[in-house]
């Protein structure tokens, strides 16, 4: 392997070992996959202006498609991807970005200006990968053309001095052997062909016939497939971004959802999305079961299983189907996937206003913030009269109090459910029709009715308990408890393409890294003393540490072919030894 290694190691230097000018040149070209960066010499620099615009373009193209540039862009891409893990990203979590900018008024806006919160759609990141892909295309096309030609052409001519190639072997057949130089070459060609080589027998009319053989065209093909597939992956991602959509929906037990735009809590369409793409399915959450670890001392209360029992319908008139949704087991309905991404408690609450009418009745979604499902809750009651009412606080499934009387959640299961709420009265700001976050209530302009600092105290409610608000503004009742699931509903038409192309890329990568592209030449001649002399040599194109093993295998094949022929006396041990063979470098 040392020989190949040396030639491979320094393609710019002289692959002196090969000693074959054409092979060596081609070798260097192949190794330097991308076009060799031809930097104009100083003399050319002087005459450059005459090249004009086209010349400049050509020069720029050569630079862009050079291996050096590709490598530089590749490393730049790695560096450019890093900030996306250091700063919060808008596509993943817009609220955190807003908070970050508020918390860092000095640096935040500047970071935003440089698109550090949208790294992967930023101008600079896009510029890097687009340049990289252009460079890749500029590299792949000429290589594909070259490979197409290579696949259709005959193996290269037999070098004059085989002994100077990295792997060389020779053997001499006994004088009595019926194998002439021509039959020897033909035999070798047959053996090599069976070994997967493409062969050409040449010079059968001369005294030194030879066979040229080459194999491993899949190596370069794999390389090309790999790079083209990367373009395919990029296109698939783009297709997903154009025609896909992604929406979120929270469903409380007993409630249902119809796949229409108004049905979503949150919806991010692709650039070319149209509402007609929404499959007309509907689903209902019948039951949601949660199982927590009750055996482990160290992981007590850790979730073990989430199972949502649903009833789905493919369309308004379709028959309802019972289906189970779990984490890692999405539902597939009409080309759309439904994922279980979150869950929590929705206490059922009834609010009666000052006039004694029911102003709110039903489950209120609370947002869990820790493993014990300590959940924050906001309830806005705009229908309450004479004044609108608002409630903000915590829901604890299993509430305990510490020595100071502060309540805390101690278990995710509802063993002792409690609501801890503050109440407010006043204009909730919902009447103007502006969209407002249902999980946030701005209490700065509201009158405080109940909280810890007031004489009236905070509201603490157990199941079936009712609290009467001060000033005769109404009552609040904790009727019961339901669970809810948070669903992600997505459609990504590019997904299949991405999988296909990445699989192709992997296959191409394996072919390009593990297949050896090799050339073998076998030449035969007749010694003045009548013996048939055979010599052969191997040359690898690209890195190939198995070349020596291949040389050994070929030697064995040839020896087996000629030294154990049925028409020869088998007991002639001298003859096996007479094949005076010598190898270099093995």
């Amino acid at each position, binding site marked *: 392997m040392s020989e190949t290694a040396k030639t491979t190691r320094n*393609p*710019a230097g002289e692959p002196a070992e090969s000693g074959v000018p054409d092979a060596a040149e081609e070798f260097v070209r192949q190794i330097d996959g991308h076009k060799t960066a031809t930097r104009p010499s100083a003399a050319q620099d002087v005459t450059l202006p005459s090249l004009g615009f086209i010349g400049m373009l050509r020069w720029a193209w050569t630079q862009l498609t050079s*291996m050096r540039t590709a490598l530089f862009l590749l490393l730049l891409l*790695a560096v450019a991807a890093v900030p996306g*893990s250091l700063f919060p990203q808008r596509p993943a979590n817009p609220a955190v970005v807003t908070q970050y900018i508020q918390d860092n008024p000095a640096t935040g806006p500047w970071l935003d200006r440089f698109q550090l919160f949208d790294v992967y759609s930023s101008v600079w990141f896009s510029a890097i990968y687009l340049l990289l892909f252009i460079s890749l295309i500029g590299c792949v096309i000429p290589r594909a053309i070259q490979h197409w030609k290579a696949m259709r052409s005959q193996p290269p001519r037999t070098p004059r001095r085989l002994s100077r190639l990295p792997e060389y072997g020779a053997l001499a057949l006994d004088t009595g052997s019926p194998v002439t130089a021509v039959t020897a070459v033909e035999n070798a060609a047959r053996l090599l062909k069976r070994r997967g080589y493409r062969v050409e027998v040449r010079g059968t009319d001369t005294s030194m016939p030879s066979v040229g053989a080459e194999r491993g065209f899949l190596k370069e093909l794999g390389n090309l497939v790999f790079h083209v597939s990367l373009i395919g992956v990029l296109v698939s991602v783009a297709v997903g971004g154009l025609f896909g959509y*992604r929406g979120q929906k929270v469903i409380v037990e007993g409630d249902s959802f119809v796949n229409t735009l108004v049905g979503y809590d949150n919806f991010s369409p692709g650039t070319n999305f149209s509402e007609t793409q929404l499959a007309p399915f509907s689903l209902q959450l019948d039951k949601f079961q949660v199982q927590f670890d009750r055996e482990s001392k160290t992981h007590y209360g850790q979730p073990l299983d989430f199972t949502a029992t649903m009833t789905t319908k493919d369309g308004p008139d379709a028959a309802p189907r019972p289906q189970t949704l779990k984490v890692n087991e999405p539902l597939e309905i009409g080309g759309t996937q439904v994922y279980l991404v979150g869950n929590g408690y929705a206490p059922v609450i009834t609010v009666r206003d000052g006039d004694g009418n029911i102003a709110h009745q039903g489950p209120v979604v609370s947002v869990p913030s820790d493993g014990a499902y300590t959940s924050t809750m906001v309830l806005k009651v705009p229908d309450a009269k004479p004044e609108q009412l608002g409630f903000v606080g915590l829901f604890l499934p299993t509430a305990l109090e510490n020595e100071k009387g502060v309540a805390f959640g101690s278990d995710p299961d509802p063993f002792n459910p409690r609501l801890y709420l503050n109440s407010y009265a006043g204009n909730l700001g919902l009447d103007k029709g502006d969209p407002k976050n249902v999980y946030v209530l701005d209490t700065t302009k509201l009158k405080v009715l109940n909280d810890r600092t007031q004489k009236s105290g905070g509201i603490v409610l157990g199941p079936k308990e009712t609290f009467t608000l001060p000033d005769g503004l109404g009552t609040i009742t904790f009727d019961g408890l339901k669970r809810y699931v948070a669903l992600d509903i997505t459609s990504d038409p590019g*997904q299949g393409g991405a999988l296909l192309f990445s699989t192709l890329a*992997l296959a191409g990568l394996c072919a390009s*890294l593990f297949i050896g592209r090799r050339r073998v030449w076998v030449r035969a001649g007749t010694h003045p003393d009548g013996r048939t002399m055979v010599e052969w040599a191997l040359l690898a194109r690209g890195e190939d540490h198995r070349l020596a093993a291949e040389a050994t295998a070929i030697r064995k094949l040839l020896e087996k072919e000629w030294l154990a022929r049925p028409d020869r006396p088998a007991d002639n041990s001298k003859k096996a030894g007479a094949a005076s063979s010598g190898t270099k470098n093995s």
Partner: protein
Amino acid sequence: MPSIDETLGQYSELFILLAAMTFTVALISFCWDLATASKTLQAVEDRLARQQAPAEAALVGAGARNGAAAGAGSTASAETGLETAGDSLDYGGRRRPAARIGVALAALGTLILAAGVISRGIAAHRVPWGNMYEFCTTGALVVSVVFLLALTRKDLRFLGSFVIGLVVIMLCAAAIGFPTPVAHLVPALQSYWLIIHVSVAVISSSLFTLTFAMSVLQLLQSHREARSRAGQPDRLGFMRLVPTALTLENVAYRINAVSFVLWTFTLMAGAIWAEKAWGRYWGWDTKEVWTFVIWVVYAGYLHARATRGWTGTRAAWLSIVGYLCVVFNFTVVNVFFSGLHSYSGLN
């Protein structure tokens, strides 16, 4: 869900501690091997040098000492006279008792570690790679098994102190940094993709660990070769047991090529799992970002090997940077960055 066998889990932890101790002694043996090899050779050379004419010894320096010191398994470069291990990486040459003890202890440690890892899997009724502690211990097991398997074919004992050193670090990190009692998996991890994605990631990382050690040695060796060419004295005597920088580079390249394919598969399997679990195959989660960065760095490494002026030392640096990214991705990203991959098992 079957109950966790906590007693077996505690035995598993004991096994792993015991393995860590065994590996520590193996590490000492390997270091001893490097040190004594360097020292005994030095003594032989000094004696040789004294026998020769002082002037000549001073003039030819490293060049004079070759045959006597160099065993069958090592070579002395004709050009510089610098002695290194043979390029074939075959066994042979001088006896190295300390290295033999090191290999034996490493094998013993691997057996104990395997017992620890397997018993943890049995205790939990699942594959033992669901949190940082388990990644570390399983990763250490894979590293040591791969190293021992490689040793059966080639004499890579020169890597012993580095590789076993990393194994010891991983086991200490597991036992001290990320101790996690055996438990069930959270629902997000209950998928057969855990078996596929994480196991391939661990194997790939283990191979990167080997090539990292080789690349570091390659840099040291090429530094040593450069000094030798400049006629300066050899200060890194223990590097005599290590093959030439070129050999190291080629072997590291072969392993990195395999590992890059595995890493590509890790990335793809992760994407498929992400699609199943989170509804998108790629979302630039911090872990995904770093997995991508690692992939790009090693892709850069493979390209560098085919770019003029980027082979040798620069490629080795890329391999090292890639491995540092792997370590960063495993430690800092898991522990300090928030993201969907927050399964470290740490609070």
